[in-house]
Every structure is written in structure tokens, then in C-alpha cells.
């Protein structure tokens, strides 16, 4: 909706109506102000101070926190690990979700069952599930390594070796995200008109791959874009599994952005520095959202 259409009827509103409007939006506006805007602004302000939890005073230190971020080995590792994690989790769970959705859509029986099974990880409690993963991936008594031993392979120490810890966490991340993506893709698939497939077949697209390439993929465009951005933001937010399973270890091999933020703020009590990390995180998320809206405006259309 453009601004012009909104502005047009405004002069005709009576003062009473305007007041009623304000009153009606007040609860939502107030909640937004108090719960979202104010804390965000406070965090932005904190990022420019040296505030420590329990310290009697705080000083305005300008960009010093950000200068420190640039030299902080821990932060650099956290940023690199987060990017790696997103680079594994996002494509795998998006393509995996799409593949599963097409399989379920093509099947004739047990659709609801499969949908429920794959959606379960999304509704389960991440912390409780992390404990289950800890057992599954346990190097000596875990079923996975027991199975590997049975076929004569010595399984790695999934979560405690710095070689495999990030991949193990990413696998858990894929497991958490794939069901969510599956449901979104299923919704997108059902919205595609059946007759388009019939028309494509008439026009000579006989093979399944051609139908996918010419009909399904283009029509799923908006859904795919949405799924990609939401998966990326969810992956950037990784925290629970790290906090429960590895605490960023060994030797920072699984340190990620949000865990570094938590550690700085609540273990080392450096709230100012922690707020600076939060701002970096916020910038990444905003950039992803901005990218989505830009691409959405430009080119994803039912051409």
C-alpha cells in the first residue's frame, strides 16, 4: 500500500475517531515500545560503554568495544564458526526440506504421519533434545559409535574433538530445521495449481525433472526465498545446543556468536562488550531481512 492512499482519508477523521484509534493501538504500541524498542535502544547505548555487571559506574568509551572486537581472537573464531555453521545448516536443511516435501507430496499414503514425524523436532524442547543427542553421540556408550564399532570403524569423539564438534552441532541443527522447512514447502506445493502440470505435459515436458524445473521450482520461488532467509536467521541464532553440549569447547572450536555474547555478558560480567557483540548479531540479522525484501521486490514473481 502506498503512503498516498493512507494519507488521503486522514483529514476527514474526527478528533474522537483519532483518539479511539490511538487507544486501540495503544496496547500493541506500548508493548512494542517497552518490550522491543526500549531494550534494543538500551543495548545500543550499552555497546558504547564499559559497563560491567555490579560495577558502581560506567564510562562512555565510544567505539573502543568495537575496536577490541576487531582484535579479539575469540570473537573472530566465534564469527567464523557461526558462518561455517550457517553455511552447512542452511543449504542442507533447505534442500533436504524440499526433497522431503516433494516425496511426501508425491506419496499417496501416510502423509500426515510423515509430516508429523519430521515436524516433531521443531516442537520439541531444544535443551531436552540436546541431552538425547549427547547420549546418541557419546563416544563410548552411544549407539552411533557402538554401531560403527560393530562394522569395524572407530567412531570419532563427535562432540569433544575439535575436528568434528562443529559438524556434529550442524547435524543437530539440520535435524532441528528440516521439519520446519518441510512444512513450509508442503504449503507452497499445495498452492501450485494442478492444471499447470497438465499444461506442461501437453507442451512436451514429459519427464519429472522437466516438470520440476519448469513448473515447481519457479512457482515455489517466494516460498524458497522465505525458507532460505528464515533458516539462515534461525541458524545464526544457534545457542541452546552449544550451551548444553559443548560450552564453546574444546578450545573454542564450537564458539558461536550468541554463546560468545552470553559468556562475555554473564560469565565475565562485561555487559558493554557483550552488547557490542549483540549489535554485530543484530546487523547480520537485519542484513538478511533486508536482502530478502530486496530480492522479493525485484525478481521473485510468477513469471
Amino acid at each position, binding site marked *: 500500500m502506498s503512503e498516498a492512499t493512507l494519507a488521503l482519508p486522514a483529514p476527514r477523521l474526527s478528533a474522537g475517531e483519532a483518539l479511539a484509534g490511538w487507544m486501540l493501538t495503544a496496547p500493541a504500541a506500548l508493548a512494542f515500545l517497552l518490550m522491543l524498542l526500549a531494550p534494543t535502544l538500551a543495548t545500543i547505548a550499552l555497546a558504547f560503554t564499559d559497563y*560491567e*555487571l*555490579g*560495577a*558502581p559506574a560506567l564510562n562512555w568509551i565510544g567505539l573502543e568495544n568495537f575496536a577490541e572486537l576487531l582484535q579479539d581472537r575469540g570473537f573472530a573464531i566465534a564469527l567464523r564458526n557461526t558462518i561455517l555453521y550457517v553455511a552447512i545448516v542452511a543449504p542442507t536443511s533447505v534442500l533436504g526440506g524440499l526433497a522431503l516435501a516433494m516425496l511426501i507430496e508425491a506419496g499417496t499414503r501416510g502423509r500426515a504421519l510423515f509430516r508429523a514425524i519430521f515436524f516433531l523436532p521443531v516442537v520439541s524442547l531444544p535443551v531436552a533434545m540436546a541431552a538425547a543427542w*549427547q*547420549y546418541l553421540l*557419546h*563416544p*563410548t*556408550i552411544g549407539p552411533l559409535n*557402538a554401531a560403527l*564399532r560393530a562394522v569395524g570403524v572407530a567412531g570419532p*569423539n563427535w*562432540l*569433544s*574433538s*575439535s575436528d568434528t564438534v562443529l559438524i556434529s552441532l550442524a547435524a543437530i541443527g539440520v535435524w532441528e530445521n528440516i521439519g520446519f522447512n518441510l512444512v513450509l514447502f508442503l504449503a507452497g506445493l499445495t498452492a501450485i495449481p494442478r492444471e499447470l502440470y497438465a499444461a506442461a505435459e501437453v507442451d512436451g515436458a514429459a519427464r519429472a525433472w522437466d516438470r520440476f524445473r519448469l513448473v515447481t521450482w519457479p512457482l515455489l520461488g517466494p516460498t524458497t526465498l522465505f525458507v532460505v532467509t528464515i533458516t539462515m536467521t534461525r541458524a545464526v541464532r544457534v545457542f541452546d545446543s552449544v550451551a548444553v*553440549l*559443548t560450552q564453546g*569447547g*574444546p*578450545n*573454542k572450536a564450537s564458539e558461536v556468536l550468541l554463546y560468545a555474547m552470553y*559468556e562475555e555478558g*554473564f*560469565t*565475565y*560480567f*562485561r555487559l558493554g562488550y557483550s552488547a557490542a557483540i549483540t549489535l554485530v548479531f543484530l546487523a547480520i540479522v537485519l542484513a538478511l531481512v533486508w536482502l530478502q525484501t530486496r530480492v522479493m521486490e525485484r525478481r521473485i514473481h510468477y513469471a
Partner: protein
Amino acid sequence: MTITTRRAALATPAAMLFMPRVLRAQAQTEITVHYAQPFIYKEAYDAILAAFAKREPGIKVNYVTTPNYEEGAQLILRQAATNQLPDLSYQGFNRLRVFAERGIAQDLMPLVKAEAADPATIGYTSNLLALGHFGGFQSGLAFAASNPVTYYNADLVRRAGGDPDNFPTNWGDVLQLAGKIDRLGDGTEGMWFTWNGDDWMFSALLFGHGGRMLTEDERDVGFAGPDGLASLRLIDRMVKEGGMPNLSATAARQAFTAGKLGMIFQTTALVRGMKEGAGNNFALRTTGMPVIDLAKGRLPTGGAAGMLTAKDPARRDAAWKFLRFSTGPEGQALMVRNTGYLPCNQIAIDDPQYLGQFYRENPLFLAAVKQIPISIPWYAFPGTNSVRVTQTMVDNIARIVEGRATPEEVQRDMAAEVRRLLPRRS
């Protein structure tokens, strides 16, 4: 986090349902007491409160708990900023220094001295007082103490050709035995030493050599010399000779209670949990830590101390009475029986009427009691980077465990990194 301050209880009708007594108009003092780790301590604090209420009916105590020490420290630091401190808080030994240096903890010595000119006569010997002495004054009174001990699987020791009744007492023999257990096959691991989490167990090796974390004047690191190197080399040998796998603490405990790990070196505070976990899987035994230096060797003490934060005189007086009771012989006996920690009052330790029977019936707890004479305070680093230093050390030790660096390289890097984190002094 469960927060049940007096104010919150009065303000929220829901809370009133659970605390109807708050409303009873009585001339009584009400205090708020904070403690961490209710999953370990709840029974102990409840038992102490029940006994305390009989003795001091005019004092009403409300508990506030946090799931762990870390969140407990956050809570107090946050509340100090907003002037909503509880009256008494039980904090981990290694966090006490932060509160002492930030002026939140109060000096308890005048109160102790007011009761007895010589604190030792009421059970506060100088060793026990030292556990809560941080920032240059008596910032806390030790409430629960622990030291590191050896847990071993007697069945695996026997299968590897060892004698469970004569467990080796030096690291050389211990590592040899662990290596034999490791070679039993079938996924069995030799040993595990709690090197991650924090620096506590590393300090057990360092103190065992007679070493120090920082020099006497706290201006430089104390582990850059031969003691520190020997401690790091020992960790290297655990991996190479003892077959120590690269596990997280939780995973190692699970492997041990499942009967797949020969021995595990960790705090005595976990005796209860290990005993329940092991069940009838295998014969669990405990013994003291392998001795490194018989004359100079010491061990760190973990646990919690109560620190006084009340400002109002009446509440301060009531909070002190509670702290005094909880750290007195009666309170300590209740604490030990309900947790498995070590008592922090000499009378409770010496007088058999308090704990004699308990230790006869629970021999697994005895290993730690025998180490009390060589236990010294848990070292807390000075300055605002106190906790970060700990993590820096753990990160560096991880490199040895993963076989990515030699003890010499790790000692050099660890010393350099910790030096940068120490407070700069003019």
C-alpha cells in the same frame, strides 16, 4: 531462576497462596537468603531451616535459589546495582573475591570475634577461615567444602590385574594401571581427569607439586616454572600412557557410571550422584588423589561460603544468626548428611556425636575427609578478568589433550595469555 523476595511475595497474590505466613502480623524479622544448586543443596538447607526455626522462632527466612553458582553471582551483582540484595548469600569460593573486591561482601571477623575471642573455640580454625578470606578480609564463612578424589571401578581394576584394596598412590603406578584397563578392549577406557570446566583440577596438580597459580605478590603467573610444566606434562602422560579419551565431563561421568571407564578424578561432591549412577553395575570405590609431593603437596578446596550483604541492623543481625547456625556444628552435620560435602566446622569434624555414624555407614565419603589436612583455598584470580583467566587455561589445556601442542608450548602460551589478563598495577 526462582526469585521469592519478600517484596515480590507481598506484591504478587499468586505467591501469597504459597506463603500465607508472610501476612501474619507478628513482631518478627524476616530475611532473604540466597543459595545456588538446589538440586544438590535443597534438602540440606531445608533441614537447616527447620532446625533454625525451632531455635529462633522470631526470624522468618525466605529462600531464593539459582540453578548454579554462575547465575547466583549474576543475581547478586544485578541486585547490588538495583539495591535489592538479599540479606545473606551462599556463593562458590572462587566467586567470593569478585564480591569482596566490589565492596558487596562485608567483613565477618568482628561478628566472629564478638562471639569468641579465639574463633577456633567455636570451630572456626584458621584453615577453615582461610577458605572464605578474600580481598584482604573475612568476606565469607565456609559452608560446604570439597576436594578432588579418585573414583575407581574395582571390577575393572581387578580384571586388569590390579588390587582394588591397594590402589596405587602415585601417578606413575596409577597411569600404568589405567593403561592396562584401557587395553582390556570392548570400548573400555582407562581413566579420565576433569581438566575442563574450570581450573580447579589443574590447580590440584599444580598445588600437588607445591606450586602456585600466581606469585606471592600476585603480579605474575606462578605456573611458568618447573611445577607448572610438570603438571602439564602429567596431563600429557594421562593421554599417552593412561589412555585418557577426549571427553566432556558429562560424557566421562556417563561412561564411568556405565562401567566403561576405569577411574575418574573429580570432586568428592559428586559421590552421591556417582553412587546412584553406578548402582549395581560395578563395585565403586573412592580413595585420595595420587600423591605428587608428600611434603609440599596440597589440594584445592571447592564449595560454597556464606557472605553477609544485609545493611539494615535488625536484618543483618538475623542473617548473621542464620549464617552462624548453618556453619556451626549442628548446621554442618545436617549439611554433610544431606549432600556429601565436607564439614566446615572443626567441632563437627572432631566430635563423633555429629558425624561419626554417618562416616561409618558411608565409607565412600571418607577419602575426602582424610585429605582435609592438606587442603588449601581455591585460588581466585584478582581483578575483573578473574573468570576469563580460568577459561583461558582450560582452552590451552585442551590443546594437550587433543595432542595438538606439547606441554612446553602450552605453558608458554598460557603464561603469556594469563599475564595479559592480570590487572595492571602502577
